[in-house]
C-alpha cells in the first residue's frame, strides 16, 4: 500500500499514529492491511428542558423543586420532578423540596465519560427527602470516600453562577 501512510501492527500504535498524522495502516497477523483515518464529529444541540424547565430555573434561584401528583388519594411526591404521575397518570404540580436529606446510596467515581475525566474523583449520591417517594441523584462534595455512608445527613448548595445544568446543585455533609 501507499508508502505515505505509516504501517502499524498493534491497534494501540494505530491510535497513536492517528493522533499524530490522522492516518495509519493496520497490518494484522495474516498480513491484511486496513487503512484507518480520523473522522471528527461534533454537534451543538438546541436542547429544550421543556416541561422540566422550572427545575433548572429554580436551581438558579437557589430552590430545589420536586413535583406532586394533583389527584386526590394519590398525591405521590417526586424528588426528581415528573410532569405526570407514574402511578395514576395525573398531572403533577411543582413543590419545593427540603434543602436537606439523607444519603440513600453513594459512590466515588475515579473515572467518567471523556468530558468528566478532569473532575475525578467525584462522589455521586442518591438523596432521599422526608415526605417524598422518589430520590434525587446529585454530586456530593466536601467529603471523601471513608466519610461517606448510607443515612448520612446532607444539605444542598447552589452554584451562584448557574450553568443551567443539574450540576448547579450539589450536596455537602450537613453541618
Amino acid at each position, binding site marked *: 500500500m501507499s508508502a505515505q501512510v505509516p504501517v502499524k501492527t498493534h*491497534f494501540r500504535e*494505530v*491510535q497513536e499514529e492517528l493522533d499524530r498524522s490522522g492516518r495509519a495502516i*493496520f497490518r*494484522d497477523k495474516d498480513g*491484511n492491511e*486496513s487503512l*484507518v483515518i480520523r*473522522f471528527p*464529529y461534533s454537534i451543538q444541540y438546541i*436542547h429544550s*428542558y421543556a416541561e*422540566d424547565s422550572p427545575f*433548572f430555573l429554580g436551581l438558579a434561584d437557589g430552590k430545589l423543586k420536586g413535583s406532586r401528583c394533583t389527584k386526590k388519594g394519590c398525591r405521590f411526591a*417526586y*424528588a*426528581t420532578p*415528573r410532569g405526570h404521575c*407514574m402511578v395514576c397518570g395525573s398531572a403533577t404540580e411543582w413543590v419545593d423540596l427540603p434543602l436537606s436529606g439523607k444519603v*440513600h*446510596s*453513594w*459512590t*466515588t*467515581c*475515579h*473515572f*467518567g*465519560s*471523556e*468530558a*468528566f*475525566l478532569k*473532575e475525578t474523583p*467525584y462522589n*455521586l*449520591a*442518591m438523596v432521599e427527602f422526608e415526605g417524598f*417517594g*422518589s*430520590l*434525587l*441523584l*446529585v*454530586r456530593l462534595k466536601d467529603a471523601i*470516600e471513608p466519610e461517606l*455512608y*448510607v*443515612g448520612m445527613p446532607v444539605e444542598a448548595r447552589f452554584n451562584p453562577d448557574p450553568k443551567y*445544568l*443539574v*450540576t448547579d446543585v450539589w450536596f455537602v455533609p450537613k453541618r
Partner: protein
Amino acid sequence: MPPRSPPARSRAAKRPPTRLTPPSKGRRVYMVAGGVTKFAKAHPEMDFRLMVKRAYDAALRDVPNLTKDRIDGTRISYFSDHFSRQLKAASMVQDYLGLNPKGSVRIEWGGATGGECFQAAYEAVASGRMDVCLGAGYETMSRVATWKGNEFIALASDTNFDFPLGGFYTGYYALMVVRHIYEYLRLGRFAHVKDEREAQRLAIAEGSRIMSMVSVKNHLNALHNPYAQYPKRLTVADVLASEMISYPLTREQICTMSDGAAAVILCDEARAKEFSDRPILVTGVGTGTDTMRLADRPFGKVPLMPRETSSDYTDLPYPGIHSFRAGRSAGLEAYKMAGITDPNRELDFIELHDAYASSEIQTYEDLGLCKYGEGYSFVERGDPFLKGVDYGFPTPKAGAIPVNPSGGLIACGHPVGATGLMQGVFAYWQLQERIPKHFGDAALQLPSPKRGAIHSHAGTGSAVTVSILERGYR
C-alpha cells in the same frame, strides 16, 4: 482444570423428564444454527458488515440444507449509531449478506439489544409471519477512545438529570450495589455491629470479596472458550487489587468494550426437523422494563416467584435501586410460559448479563435462583460455579446451577448488539452437547443439559429479556 468426564446422568435422573411444553404464544420455534466471531478489543480489519457476515457464515455451516433462499427475513441489532458512525447500518448488513429484498428491521434496546433481537426473530416465526428468520447483531466499540465510548453508553441515561453528573454507567451500578450491600449485608450478617459506619465498611468489604469470587469464576471459565476476549486465572486478591473504577467496583468486576458479531437462525417445527438433527426449542420468552432514572424506582412490593411468599419480604422496599424489577418481570413471564416453577432445579444453566459482578449477584435474586438477600450466600456456597474446577476457594455446591459457564460478559466481552445473541449461541451449543466441537475443548460442556436460560439487560435495569431454551430432540 482437567477435561471433564463424559456426561453424567445423575442430576437429570433426579428430576422428572423434561416435557416439550408447547408455547402458549403462537407456533413452536426452534433454534437450528448459531455463529459468533471472536470478541476482541478491536477488529480494525473488519467493518461491521464483514463481522456479521463471518458470524452468519459460521451459523450456516451448522445447517448444510439451509440455503440463503430458505431464509424468509431478518432482524438485525446494534445498540449505538454513535459507535457505528453510520446510521441505518442494519440496512448495510442486510445488503452485504445478499438478503435483499427480503424483509428486515433493526432492533435496539440498550444493553438488551441482542436479547431483544433473539426474541424479535422468535416472534417473527411464532406469529407465522416467517418460517425461517435470521437474527444477527454486532457492535464496533473500538471506533472511539474508551472514555468517549463510556460517554456514548451514558447517553443512554436521562440527559437532563443523570448524564451531566459524570456520564458514567459504572457509577450508576456502584450506587446500586452499595444499596444492595446495605440492604442485605449491613442489615443481614452485620446487623449486630452497633457502629453504623463500621458496619457499612465491613459489609462493603464482604460484598467486594464475594463479587470478586464471581469475577474469578467468569474469567476462569473463559479459559476454555476460544471466543472469549479476556480469559484468565485470577485470585480474589487480584480482583480486589485491580484499579478502582467507581467504589466499590474494580476493573476486574466490570466488562469491557468489544468488537464482535453473533447470529442465530430460528425456524418453525417442520423446517427444524429438515435442517437439524439437534434442534433446540425456545419454550419461554419474557421481558420487563423499569424507569429510566434510578431515582424514580418505586419502593413497593416484590412480585413473587412461585415458591416465594409475601412473608419472605415483609420489610423490603422493592425494587428501590438495589434490585432489577425488569429482570424479575422478564423471569416470571418466561418461566410461566415454559412451565418452570423452581428455576434453581429446573434450569441446568444460565447465561446471564454480568456487565458487572454486582449485577450477576443481583440477577440471581431477580431470577429466583435464590431469594432476595441470599445472592451473596449463593456465591459462597458455590451454586453458580462449575463442578470439578479449582477456583482457588471452596465451592461446595458447585454444579447446582452453573451461571455463565462461557465466561459471561466479564470475560467474553460485551459488543452490545451481539451480546444477547452470543448467549443464545453458547446456550444452543450447550444444549446440543456440541461445546467440545465448537470450543475445541470439552471442559465447559455441562453433563447432558436439558434446559437453559439466557438473560439480556439494558441500562441500569431499564429493560431485561429472558428466553428459555430446551433440547428439542430425543
